[in-house]
């Protein structure tokens, strides 16, 4: 593999506060222009990682490289990083123009030039007419654009977004998600964002890093995380997942997976098949499950009784109770057949070989 410059590189970064391990062995890399979202529950280490990148937190061990340069001991003001804070942290005593021009002011750019560059940036975020206002005279959405302009105006190597949508109402969120993504792409920024909102992560990111208890659980494109989660935690965190527990056994050139009320078969050479008998959890997304045809005995199947049948316009949501009492969620557009079913009916459900994930344990 040829040597390629990474915009950002974390190499086994850990942060300990006494006995508390806020961050443990976190490693990942970012290409130039990539949009990464760090996703996880609160206290999972995503915010600490952001603050390590910004330079507000010095890691206990491990290395952080920006554009190939080691950042150990480099203070925030010399990292050339732009950051949008959760509540924006705009300077209340400065006008919008002064706020946006501030990073240029600190870099010794002449007044006339920094004002014209700040105005240009305000134009990009759609606030050209608001230069003379003060932050408190603006709405939350407008303040966010000012914060974004301030984070981008000096062409930083990395842009950090700390819970960018947290202070906005739901209606504005969807709009700003798309808009921030477009602006970041337009100026070619490499972005690291933090959120606990999986939808936001899916909408905005090229890749998502999922954090759990101070560790990086999995990193990948939204599709990778959705279709090939490496743990129950990730499967459950991104989208809806049915988790079926059982055992895998090798027999006669195949791998049989079985649990209470369900079974599945994998070819022996499938990478998902465990090498020997083991406990497994199968991840099934609600939309990959279908009703089996009348009289059919599918290879991958589960049987149970219908507990609830909810009509949602374009689809039905079925809740099927298995023999061991666990419930499976199904989303199906097979409206005609499901309409004919009633609560308490026994059903056989099936799914395609390629549509399920096997997780050890």
């Amino acid at each position, binding site marked *: 593999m040829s040597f390629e410059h990474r915009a950002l590189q974390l190499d086994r970064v850990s942060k300990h506060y006494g006995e508390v391990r806020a961050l443990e062995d976190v490693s990942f890399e970012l290409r130039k222009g990539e949009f990464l979202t760090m996703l996880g529950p609160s206290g999972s280490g995503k915010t600490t990682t952001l603050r390590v990148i*910004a*330079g*507000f937190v010095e890691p206990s061990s491990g290395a952080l490289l920006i554009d190939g340069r080691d950042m150990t001991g480099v*203070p*925030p*003001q*010399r*990292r*050339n*990083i*732009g*950051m949008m*804070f959760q*509540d924006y*942290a*705009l*300077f*209340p*005593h400065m006008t919008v123009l002064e706020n946006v021009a*501030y*990073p240029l*002011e*600190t*870099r010794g750019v002449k007044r006339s030039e920094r004002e014209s560059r700040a105005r240009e940036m305000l134009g990009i975020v759609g606030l050209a007419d608001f230069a003379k206002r*003060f932050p408190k005279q603006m709405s939350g959405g407008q303040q966010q654009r000012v914060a974004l302009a*301030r984070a981008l105006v*000096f062409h930083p190597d990395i842009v*950090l977004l700390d819970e960018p949508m947290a202070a906005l109402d739901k209606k504005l969120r969807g709009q700003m998600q798309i808009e921030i993504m477009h602006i970041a792409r337009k100026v070619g920024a490499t972005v690291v964002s933090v959120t606990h909102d999986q939808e936001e992560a899916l909408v905005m990111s090229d890749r998502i890093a999922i954090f759990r208890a101070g560790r990086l659980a999995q990193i990948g494109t939204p599709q990778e995380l959705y279709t090939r989660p490496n743990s129950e935690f990730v499967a459950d965190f991104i989208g809806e997942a049915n988790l079926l527990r059982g055992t895998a056994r090798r027999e006669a050139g195949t791998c049989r997976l079985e649990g209470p009320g369900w079974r599945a078969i994998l070819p022996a050479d499938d990478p998902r098949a465990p090498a020997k008998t083991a406990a497994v959890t199968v991840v099934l997304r609600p939309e990959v499950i279908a009703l089996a045809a009348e009289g059919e005995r599918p290879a991958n199947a589960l049987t149970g009784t219908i507990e609830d049948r909810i009509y949602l316009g374009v689809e039905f949501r079925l809740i099927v109770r298995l023999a061991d009492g666990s419930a499976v969620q199904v989303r199906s557009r097979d409206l005609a057949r499901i309409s004919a079913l009633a609560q308490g009916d026994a059903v056989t459900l099936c799914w395609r070989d390629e549509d399920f994930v096997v997780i050890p344990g």
Partner: protein
Amino acid sequence: MTLSSPAIPRGPTLVERLPRGSALLVPALLFLLLFYVYPLAQLIGASLPGGSGKNYALIFSRPVFLRVIAETFRVSLVVMAVTVLVAFPYAYAMANAGRRALLFLTIALLIPFWVSLLLRSFSWIVLLQNTGLVNQVLLGLGLIEKPLKLIRTETGVILGMVHVLLPYAVLPLYSVMKKIDMRLMEASSICGASWFHGFRRVYLPMALPGVMAAAILTFTLALGFYITPALLGSPRDMMIAQMIAGQFSEQLNFGLGAALAVVLMGLTALAFALFGLGRVLLARRAAA
């Protein structure tokens, strides 16, 4: 509904127009009226014997009075500047301290505050005299060869006054500083600003209302100081309050003493007005 001559709507009476709860102010107003406004009127009356302004004419024509007034203002300005400069880092430390450190800093600030002013001024004499702790330490370290003259000097007066006034400057500064969001300083540094640049452009402007409040409080309090300059200063360091006391207790010239007191009050009011004007201008510039 009856048709009668249209009733003239009766406006609310004066009492009805007062904001609710105004009655609660009555005790305080009575107290002020009886023990402040009335004696003040008496004082002004006493300064104008038979309606003649001769006492004021005397004050503004005799260099000794003008010199003491000018000295009082100069010393008060120096005391104000030193107090605010010392108080600023102290208040900053308090605003950014953890709970235990804050408790310690608060106690350290307020314990002297609870000790009588007289006692504190005497303590300074003990510390500053030729055989006092400060001189003995400096002599012992070989930094000086003979004792420094610290007491009965302006330096002594300023030292004592700064000490007394420190809490009056720290507390208003602290109350403003603890509301300053320190994430703004993080934002400043990630924007590329050195600590000093951020302090000058972000922190200081936001702390300015506290600085103004501390300055006006220490300055106006310093103008009226009596015990500290009397104990720690020489007769040349006399401030206007000492002169007023002298007129009442030694010269028994009540009229002149009263006139000096009215002049001090007038000048203090003027200082207040100037500070107030400064604040308004500052606020207007910020809002422009």
